[in-house]
C-alpha cells in the first residue's frame, strides 16, 4: 500500500530552504557584524555538548507535539489545544511526582508519564466527544478549553502547589529518583529522545499498517466514503483526539522528568504551537516529523545562540521564529484552499 503520501520530498525541501534562508537574510541586515551573527546562528548549536544536547532534547519534545498534531490532521480533525494539553500533562506529572512517596524509580516514572499522557488525552478527548455528540467544531473547542486549562494550571502552580520559599513562581522540586537518565553531560538530553523516535515509528505503523489507522485515515480524507463503506466512523472523531492529546501530555511530563524537574509558571509555553509548525514542515507525514522537529529545534537553538553572542535582540529572535511560522502556515493554508476548490 502506498503510505508516503501527503507531501512530497520537494515540498518539504522548499519549506526547509525558506526556513533557513529567512533568518540568514534577517540577520545579515539587522546585525552590526552579520558574518559573526550568521556563524553563531549556524554553528552555535554544535559549539558545545550542552547546546547540542539541549537542541536534541527540544527536538524530542517537538517530535511528540508534532506527532500529536499530525495524527489529528490525518484524521481530518484539528487540535489547537496543544499548549494547554502540554502544560496540563506537565503539571499532572509534577503533582503525581510530589505525591508518589516511596515508589521506586522505574515504576514511579512509568506512573508519572502515564498520568501526564492520560491528562492530555482526556482534555483533547473532551473536544472529540463534543464533536461526536453535538458536532461541536473541535477547532474552537480545543482552543478555548486549552485557554481555560492554561489559567487553571497557572493557578495550581501559583497557589496550592507553590513553593513559597522560591523566588520563582514554581512548585517544589520533584524527587531525584524520578529524574530521567541523562545522555549528554549536563545538557537536558535524556532517554525521552529515544522514546520519542520510537513513538514516531509506532505512529507510522498504527496509521499506515493497522486496520484502525486505515479507518482513521479514510475518515480524515472522505467521511462520505467511510459512511458509504459501512465503517462506523463516529469513534474516529474521538480516538485521534485522544492520541493527539496523549502525545502532548506525554511531551509535558517528559519535560518535567527530563528537564525542569519542577513546575514553573508557563514553562512549557510554545511547545504546542511549535508542534503545529513541525507538522506543517513535515507535511504531516509522521516519518518527516523527525527531520521537521530537528530543523525547528536547530533554528530555535541557532537564534538563541546568536542572541547571546551577537547583537540580536530578544524580540528579534522571536520575530525570526514568527516569520518562519508564518511562511509555513501560509503555504499550508494555500494547500487547504486548493482542496476546498477541487
Amino acid at each position: 500500500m502506498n503510505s508516503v503520501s501527503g507531501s512530497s520530498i520537494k515540498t518539504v525541501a522548499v519549506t526547509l530552504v525558506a526556513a533557513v534562508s529567512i533568518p540568514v537574510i534577517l540577520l545579515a541586515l539587522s546585525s552590526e557584524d552579520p558574518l559573526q551573527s550568521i556563524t553563531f546562528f549556524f554553528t552555535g548549536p554544535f559549539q558545545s555538548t550542552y547546546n547540542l544536547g539541549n537542541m536534541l532534547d527540544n527536538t524530542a519534545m517537538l517530535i511528540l507535539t508534532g506527532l500529536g498534531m499530525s495524527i489529528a490532521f490525518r484524521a481530518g480533525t484539528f487540535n489547537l489545544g496543544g499548549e494547554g494539553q502540554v502544560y496540563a500533562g506537565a503539571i499532572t506529572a509534577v503533582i503525581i511526582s510530589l505525591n508518589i512517596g516511596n515508589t521506586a524509580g522505574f515504576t514511579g516514572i512509568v506512573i508519572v508519564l502515564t498520568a501526564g499522557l492520560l491528562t492530555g488525552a482526556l482534555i483533547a478527548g473532551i473536544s472529540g466527544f463534543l464533536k461526536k455528540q453535538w458536532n461541536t467544531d473541535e477547532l474552537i473547542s480545543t482552543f478555548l478549553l486549552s485557554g481555560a486549562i492554561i489559567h487553571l494550571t497557572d493557578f495550581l502552580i501559583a497557589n496550592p502547589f507553590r513553593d513559597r520559599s522560591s523566588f520563582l513562581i514554581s512548585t517544589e522540586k520533584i524527587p531525584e529518583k524520578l529524574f530521567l537518565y541523562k545522555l549528554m553531560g549536563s545538557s537536558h538530553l535524556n532517554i525521552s529522545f529515544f522514546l520519542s523516535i520510537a513513538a514516531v515509528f509506532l505512529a507510522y505503523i498504527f496509521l499506515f499498517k493497522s486496520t484502525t489507522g486505515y479507518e482513521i485515515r479514510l475518515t480524515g480524507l472522505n467521511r462520505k466514503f467511510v459512511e458509504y463503506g459501512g465503517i462506523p466512523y463516529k469513534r474516529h472523531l474521538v480516538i485521534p483526539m485522544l492520541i493527539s492529546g496523549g502525545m502532548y501530555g506525554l511531551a509535558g511530563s517528559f519535560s518535567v522528568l527530563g528537564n525542569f524537574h519542577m513546575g514553573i509558571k508557563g514553562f512549557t509555553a510554545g511547545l504546542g504551537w511549535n508542534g503545529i509548525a513541525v507538522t506543517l514542515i513535515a507535511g504531516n507525514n509522521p516519518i518527516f516529523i523527525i527531520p521537521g522537529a530537528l530543523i525547528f529545534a536547530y533554528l530555535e537553538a541557532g537564534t538563541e545562540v546568536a542572541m547571546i553572542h551577537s547583537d540580536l535582540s530578544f524580540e528579534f529572535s522571536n520575530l525570526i521564529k514568527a516569520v518562519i511560522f508564518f511562511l509555513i502556515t501560509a503555504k499550508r493554508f494555500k494547500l487547504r484552499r486548493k482542496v476546498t476548490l477541487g
Partner: protein
Amino acid sequence: MNKRIVPGLLLTAILTVLFFSSCTKQTEKKEAQSKDYSVALFIPGVVAGSPTYEMMVRGAKKAISEIPNGKIKVIEGGYNQGEWLEKLTVIAASREYDLIVSTNPAMPAISAEVSKQFPQQKFFLLDGFLEGNNSIYTFRYNQKEQGFLGGYFAGLVTTSTMEGANKDLKIGLIAGQEYPDMMQAILPGFKAGAAAANTNISVDFRVVGNWYDAEKARSLAASIYDSGADIILTIAGGANQGVITAGRNLGKYVLMYDVSSYDDAPGIIAGSTIIRQEKAAYEKIKEAIAGKMKFGSADIADVKGGWVSFDNKHPLYQKNIPQDVKDKLQEMLNRFESGTLSLKMPVYLGK
C-alpha cells in the same frame, strides 16, 4: 504550487528585512579583538518598559565605556522563568564574559546552579541575596527600610488633611505576586512605617498574581479605595498602571516604588521611594573591573549608605504635599541617614 510560493517567500523576506534594517539601532562600535573586560547583562524579562532594568543597563554601560577595551552585551531572557536557567548556562558556557550581571531575587539560586558546572564564571547580582559562593557577589537593597519609608509616608497621608484623604485609617499595598522579599521585608516594613505614623492604621494587602494584568490591578485598587483607603503602594510592574487609573477615577493617591515617577500622573502619584540602581550597577562593575569585587559576600544597601531613599525633591511633591507631612517625612529620613534608626533585613534562604 511551489513555483508560486518562492516569490511569496522572497517578497515577505525582503519586506521584513527592509523594515528592520531601517530601524536597526547603530550601537557603539566595538573595539577590536583584544578585550580587557567583558560583561554580560542578563535581563530576566525585557528591558523596554522597565525603569529598573533601564537604570541598570545605563549604569553598566557607563562603567564599561570608561575602560578602553570593555565589552558589554545585554541579553534578554524573556518572561518564561523556566528558560532562565538554560539561557544563563549557555552564557556561562560560552566563556566569553568575565562577569555576568543580573537583577532579580530569583537569580542567586539560578546562578548558583550554573556555578556548579562553571565555577570559574563570576556573577554580580543586584536585588538578590546569597552568601558564601565564591563566584557570586550579591547586592540587595534594604527593602524593609524602603517599605518603612513608604508605610510612614502613607500613614502621614491618611492622617492628613489632604483633599483625597478621608477619616478612615486605612492604606493599601498591591503586589504583583507573593515572594519572600515582599512577605518578609517590604510588607512588614510598610506596616511598621504606617504604625509609626499612627498605631491604628490598618493595611489592606492584595496580590495581582502576575506583573502585567493592569485590569485586575485596577479592580483590586478600586475595592481597596472603596473600603476606605486613600493611598496605595503599588509594586506590580506593568500592572501598576491599573492602580494609577483607579486612583485617578476615584480621586485617591498612589505611592510608587523604586523609581520616581511623579510626572506619570501628577496629583495622583503622591510619593515615591527610590533606589540607586544605576549608581549601584556603575560603581560595582567598576569595582569588579578593578578586581575588587568581594565575591562570596552579600551586601545590603540601606538608606544610610544613600542607596535607598524617598524622592522628596520633586517639584510635584513639593507642590502637592502639605508642609507638616513634608517635615515629618524629612525628619524620618534624617533619622535613617544619621544612623539613629535602622532596620535589619531578614536573613532567609531563597531557592
